[in-house]
C-alpha cells in the first residue's frame, strides 16, 4: 500500500454525518476542526486513517471524523492503537484521549506506548477535570481545586503530562492551547510527519466544569506575553514585542529582556528539540513563565515496528520454514501403521 494520496482532500472529506454533541463553547470543537483541516495537508489516504479513543467527552471525537475509528473503553486506547499499528504499519493511527482517560485509568498503557515508540500520534485533551462524569478532579487537577469529588479542595498533587511522558522515554512531546487552532493544525501535521510516538498535550478549556483553567496564559490578551511557542533551531524569544527571551543560568532557565543590561539576541538560548538528551526539554516542560508551547522534544529513534519487522525479515531469511507443514513434519516424527 503506497501512502501517497491520490487526490487532495478538504476538511469536508473528514467530517462525518454525525452531529457534534459537545457543550456549546467547548474547546473540543476547535480541536476537531483543526484536525479536519490538518488531515488534507498530510500525505495520507483517507481510508488509511484510524482514530482510536477511550471514554470521556474528548473520546467522542472519532464519531465526528469520517475515517475508520473506534470509541473503545476507558483508558485502553493506546493499547488498542498499538495492535492496530502492528497489524498494519501502513495506517495513520491516532489516539484521542483525555487527562483522566490517559493518566488515571489508562496510565499504564500511556507510559508503555511512549516507551515502545511505535509510530502513532496521541492527542491528549487536558482540561484538568473529568468532564463526562460531571466534574471530578483528575490526575492533572491542582491541589486545592474544588470539584464534585473534592468539595473541600483536591489533596492529590498533579502529574505534569510532559514530565510523565519524558520520564517514560517519550521521543516527541508538544503542547498547544485549545484556543490557537492555526498552530494546532500545524502541530498535527508535524506529529504525523514524526516517525515514532508523538504526543500533543492540548490545553483544553471545559467551560462547564473547569472554566478558565488555562486562562492565565491562554487568554487572547495575555497569550503572546505569557506563552513561548518554541521551534527547533530558533532562539527562545517571546512577548508582544518579541523582546523577551530565555537564557541558561547554571541549571535554571531565566527570562531576560533583549536590549536591557546588554542582552542581545545572541545571548538567547536556541531551541534544540532533536537532541537525545532530554534535560533541556524537561526544563522547558517545567517552565511556568513563559508557558512553553510548540514542539518541545522531537528526537527521531528506531520505532518498535521497525525493530520487529527487521527481526522478522532476518528470521525469514534464515529459516527453511515457509508453510506450517515444514514445521509440523520437521524433526522427530514416526509412523504408525
Amino acid at each position, binding site marked *: 500500500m503506497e501512502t501517497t494520496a491520490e487526490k487532495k482532500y478538504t476538511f469536508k472529506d473528514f467530517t*462525518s454525518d454525525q452531529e457534534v454533541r459537545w457543550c456549546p463553547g467547548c474547546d473540543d470543537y476547535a480541536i476537531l476542526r483543526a484536525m479536519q483541516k490538518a488531515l488534507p495537508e498530510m500525505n495520507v489516504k483517507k481510508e488509511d486513517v*484510524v482514530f482510536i479513543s477511550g471514554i470521556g467527552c474528548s473520546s467522542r471525537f472519532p464519531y465526528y471524523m469520517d475515517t*475508520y475509528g473506534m470509541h473503545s473503553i476507558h483508558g485502553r486506547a493506546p*493499547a488498542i492503537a498499538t*495492535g492496530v499499528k502492528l*497489524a498494519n504499519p*501502513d495506517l495513520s493511527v491516532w489516539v484521542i484521549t483525555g487527562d483522566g482517560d490517559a493518566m488515571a485509568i489508562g496510565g499504564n498503557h500511556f507510559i508503555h506506548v511512549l516507551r515502545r515508540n511505535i509510530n502513532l500520534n496521541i492527542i491528549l485533551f487536558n482540561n484538568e477535570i473529568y468532564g463526562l462524569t460531571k466534574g471530578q478532579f483528575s490526575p492533572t487537577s491542582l491541589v486545592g481545586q474544588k470539584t464534585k469529588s473534592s468539595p473541600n479542595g483536591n489533596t492529590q498533587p498533579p502529574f505534569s503530562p510532559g514530565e510523565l511522558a519524558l520520564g517514560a522515554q517519550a521521543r516527541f512531546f508538544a503542547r498547544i492551547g485549545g484556543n490557537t487552532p492555526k498552530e494546532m493544525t500545524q502541530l498535527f501535521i508535524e506529529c504525523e510527519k514524526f516517525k515514532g510516538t508523538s504526543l500533543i498535550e492540548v490545553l483544553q478549556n471545559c467551560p462547564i466544569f473547569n472554566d478558565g483553567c488555562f486562562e492565565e496564559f491562554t487568554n487572547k490578551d495575555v497569550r503572546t506575553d505569557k506563552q513561548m511557542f518554541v521551534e527547533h533551531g530558533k532562539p527562545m524569544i517571546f512577548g508582544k514585542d518579541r523582546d523577551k527571551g530565555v537564557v541558561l543560568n547554571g541549571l535554571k532557565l531565566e527570562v531576560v529582556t533583549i536590549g536591557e543590561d546588554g542582552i542581545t539576541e545572541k545571548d538567547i538560548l536556541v531551541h534544540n528539540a532533536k537532541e537525545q538528551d532530554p534535560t533541556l526539554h524537561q526544563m522547558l516542560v517545567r517552565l511556568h513563565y513563559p508557558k512553553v508551547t510548540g514542539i518541545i522534544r522531537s528526537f527521531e529513534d528506531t520505532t518498535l515496528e521497525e525493530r520487529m519487522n527487521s527481526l522478522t525479515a532476518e528470521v525469514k531469511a534464515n529459516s527453511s520454514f515457509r508453510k506450517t507443514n515444514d514445521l509440523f513434519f520437521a524433526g522427530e516424527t514416526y509412523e504408525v501403521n
Partner: protein
Amino acid sequence: FPAEIRAPQGSLYGVSGFQVHIGSIEISTPGDNVDLLVAMNPAGLKTNLHAVKPGHTIIVDTDAFTKKNIEKAKYESNPLQDGSLENYRVIEVAMTSLTKEALKDLEGLDNKSILRSKNMFALGMVYWMYDRTTEHTIEFLNKKFKTNPLIIEANTKVLNSGYYFAETLELIPNAYTISPAKMAAGTYRIIMGNTALAWGFLAAAEKSGLELYLGSYPITPASDILHELVKHKHFGVKALQAEDEIAGITSAIGASFAGDLALTTTSGPGLALKGEALGLAMMIELPLVVVNVQRGGPSTGLPTKTEQSDLLQTMYGRNGESPVIVIAASTPANCFDYAYEAARLTLEHMTPVVLLSDGYIANGSAPWKIKSVDEMPEIKTNIMREAKENWHPYDRDENTLARNWAIPGTKGLEHRIGGLEKERVTGNVSYDPDNHQLMTTIRAEKIKRVQNYIPELRTEFAEEGDLLVVGWGGTYGPLYSAVKELKEAGYTSIGYAHFNYINPLPKNTEAILAKFKKIIVCELNTGQFAAVLRMNFNGFNFLQLNKIQGLPFSNGELVQKFKELAH
C-alpha cells in the same frame, strides 16, 4: 497424585545416582519406562536415555555437560544443543553450582560430600514436582547418618534447596498420556498441549490467509504458548508481550479491527482482568480468540496445579448480557484441533471465542497424528474487500447473523464502532429502548446459531442405558479409561459423553441426556458444568463427581464411583 506416579514403595528407578533406598516414589509407567530422568552428566544421560519414552522429562545438571565429559561419554556433539532431545521436556539446571552455593555457609564439608549431596538437590526438585513432602527422606537421612550430623545438615539443606528451587520457578510435572483408544495409521510426533495449541493457530492463520497476532502477558501455565509463537516469525507471527493482561487483549482487539487473526492467551487471574475488554470485543462484534489455560484457584491459588474452576467466569465474567462462544480442548493433541476450531468459529461468526485448556493437558505431552493444513476445514472470513452501495457496518449474514468485517485501508468503508449500544444495521450510537432489546436478542441468537456449525454430541461405549458419564475439557483421558475399563469388565450400560463445546451446547445434548437413567457430571471444580446443564435443561437430576485438589482424576476414584452408580 498425577496418574503416572504409582506404587508408594520402591526406589527412584532409573534415575542416576539414586540408589539410596528412600522408600518413597517410583516415577514410572507400568512396563518400567522412566517418566522422569535426572542426568547428572552426559554418561548418565547416555546410559539411561533408552529407558525414557519421548515426551517425558529429563532434568540435567548443565554444570556437568563440559566438553570433556561430553567426549568421555562418546557423544559427537552436545546433546543439549544438537536437538537430539527435542522430543523430551528438558529442564536444565546448574545443579553443581546451586548445590555448592546452598552449602557455602556450612563449614567443614569436604568437596566430595558436597558433590554427593547434589543428588539430594535433584530429589528435592522431583519431590516438589510430584507433590511429595521431604519429611520421610529427612527422617531417613537422620537415621542413616546419625553418626554424622554435618552430613545430615548438608543433605537436608540441599534437599530443601532443590525442593524450593522447583517451587520458586513454578516447575510443572509433565504428564505423558497416550490416548487409550487405538491409534490410526499415519505420521506422528510427540507434542505438548501448549505447543499443539500454538500450532493450531499457525495452521488457522495459514488457512484463512490472515496474519496471526498475539497480545499476551506471561502467566503460568499459559506462558509456553507465547514462548512457542515468538519462535515462528518465519510465518509472520506478530507477538507483543504486553504490559499487562488488559493490554494483551485490547491490543489484540486493535489488531482484529485492522484485519489480523487476533489472539490473547492467559490463565485464570488474567482472564479476570480481561473481562471488560472481552465485553467490548463482543459488543463491536470482532473476531478474537481468548485462551485460558486454567490453573488452581481462587486468586493466585495453586499456579502450577490443574483445575477446571474458570468455567463460570468464562461464561459470565463480564458486565451486561455478553454471551461469547466457549469451547474446551480435552487432550494435549487435540489442543491443535480446538485452537484451529476457535479461530474458525470466531472468523466465521464474528464474535469472540474463549478456548479453555488446563495445566494438565497444557503441560502434558502425547503422540499427535500430524495434520497437514490441507486436511483442515475451510475458513470463510466475513471480510469486505471493497465498498458497495448502501453498505453498513452492522449488515449481517442472514444465516450466521455475523456482521461484515470492514478493515481499515479499504476505500469507502470508513466507519466508527464502539462500546455504547449501537443502532441495528448502521452501528451508530443508539439509546433507543427497543433497539437495545433487539440488539441484545441478536447477540444471543448469534451464539445460539453456532449450533448449526458444530458437530453433534457423541456418546461412547453405550448409546443409552443406566448411567451417563459426563465430562468436559481436560478430563477426557482419565474418564475415557475408566469407562473403558468398566465396559471391558462387563458394565455395558454405562455411556460416556464428553463436551468440547460449552457455549452453545451441541443441539442434541438434551436428547442424549434423556437416554440414560442416571447422569453423573465429573469435573475438577465444585460443579460448574453441572450448573450450566441445570440452567439449560429442566427436569434432569444431575449427579456430581467433583475434585478440587489441583490434581486430575485418578482411575481408582472414577471406577469405584461409576460402579456404585451402575446398579
